[in-house]
């Protein structure tokens, strides 16, 4: 389980996060949503140790990540997988080498065993036969899928995903969403997704945390989200006319049920 407690973060005079408290549901897909520039990615970077918060704690199974010694850090990092917004594949390595990288660093498997495991992961993300391609030869969706394969090869207990659908077409976005869902439930990992793609949130989100102005403004599941009266949340979720129509329809259904 991951718990974020009283996290605040500022850059010089700019306060980005203020007193963030979130308990992420273990084994579920937890979304952090919000408008651009509200601190979602900063929170994610604090959680994975790329940024240090000014105050607060980040607990992995009850142990504060910020006070861990080097060995504890190394151990917990082997339980963490992350998919970056741009996939962050190593340019000089092939798909196979990219996916194999965590195994090369941390496992004592033979080369054949590693290749077998890589092929299993590539099959899971539907990239069979792409082993020898370089990142420059892949499409955006294929890069993301390779990133997912690399993130899951160590069977992570905690999976972090930053803007999984940015720059992808709707069809590929659904493929990536489904992958995240399947992997989360197959591996039993606690998945934390930072996104502002509402399709994705409604499709696979189990728990949603809405951040606005560097604070947690609202928390709940997708059914509660549709019925929420929180103005900031409604302004964000139902920004488009299409979504407003959905909201009106929901209201209509609710009032009919009430009658």
């Amino acid at each position, binding site marked *: 389980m991951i718990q974020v407690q009283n996290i605040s973060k500022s850059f010089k005079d700019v306060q980005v996060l203020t007193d963030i408290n979130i308990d992420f549901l273990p084994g579920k897909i937890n979304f952090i949503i919000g408008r651009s520039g509200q601190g979602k990615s900063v929170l994610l970077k604090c959680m994975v140790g790329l940024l240090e918060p000014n105050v607060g704690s980040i607990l992995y199974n009850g142990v504060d990540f910020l006070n861990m010694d080097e060995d504890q850090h190394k151990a917990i990092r082997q339980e963490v997988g992350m998919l*970056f917004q741009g996939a962050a594949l190593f340019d000089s390595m092939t798909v196979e080498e990219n996916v194999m990288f965590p195994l090369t*660093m941390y496992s004592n498997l033979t080369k054949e065993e590693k290749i077998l495991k890589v092929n299993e992961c590539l099959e899971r993300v539907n990239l069979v036969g792409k082993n020898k391609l370089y990142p420059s030869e892949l499409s955006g969706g294929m890069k993301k899928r390779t990133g997912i394969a690399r993130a899951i090869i160590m069977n992570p207990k905690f999976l972090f995903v930053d803007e999984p659908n940015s720059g992808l077409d709707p069809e590929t976005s659904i493929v990536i969403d489904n992958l995240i869902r399947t992997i989360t439930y197959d591996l039993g990992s606690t998945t934390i997704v930072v996104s502002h793609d509402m399709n994705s949130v409604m499709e696979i989100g189990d728990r949603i945390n809405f951040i606005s102005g560097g604070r947690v403004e609202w928390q709940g599941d997708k059914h509660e989200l549709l019925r929420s009266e929180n103005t900031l949340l409604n302004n964000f979720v139902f920004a488009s006319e299409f979504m407003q129509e959905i909201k009106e329809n929901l209201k209509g259904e609710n009032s009919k049920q009430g009658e």
Partner: protein
Amino acid sequence: MTGILGNFGRYFLLMRRVFSRAEKKKIYRPLITDEMIKIGVQSVGIVALLSFFMGAVVTLQTAANIESGWIPKWTVGYTTRQTMIYEFSSTIVALVLAGKVGSNIASEIGTMRISEQIDALDIMGVNSASYLILPKLIASTIMFPFLVLMAMSVGICSGAIVGTMSKATSLNDFIYGIQYDFDSYGIVYSLIKTVFFAFILSTIPAYHGYYASGGALEVGKSSTKGVVYSMVAVMVANYLLTQILLL
């Protein structure tokens, strides 16, 4: 002033990270081999070309400046040898490599930084500073002395060829000159300098690349800074080492 001190502090902290908690040795072996090829083998052509012309120019200039009949003809070979061994082969080659290797290191690491590849290494628990910089540092320290030895040989040979072809000196005089009062310490001095230069040329551009931020424009800027600062550092180190080793 605080900016300069801040950069020094950050550079030394990065170096501490480079040498602390290295990954498994077997991880580094292929990386060092790759870097030896990129940094060393792929620089052979440019170093040989520049050394050839520099040796030739030094020979011709020396011959052209000898006006007095009292100065023996073998002075041309002697001067070419001294210039190539003491200064050109180590310092000028280092400056050339700052442009070629330094910009490559800074832009490679800088691109990895802005495309989150370094973040990916950190999240996996890999010591990214050590993983990225140590192989380049080791490869430079191994390969630069070979390049410098090659530069010495090519420069002196080109001096002999051009000097005799242009009739600036005879081959016998030139060979007598390069053997005259030969002290092998000159080569040792040059190689010691080269090891220091290798450290400077691999770590300063790496530092600028590692802390690059923003986009492609910033990577270009960090690459330029890496080259300029490493050139300045080479010249300062050259002065200090000469003071220490020769006087």
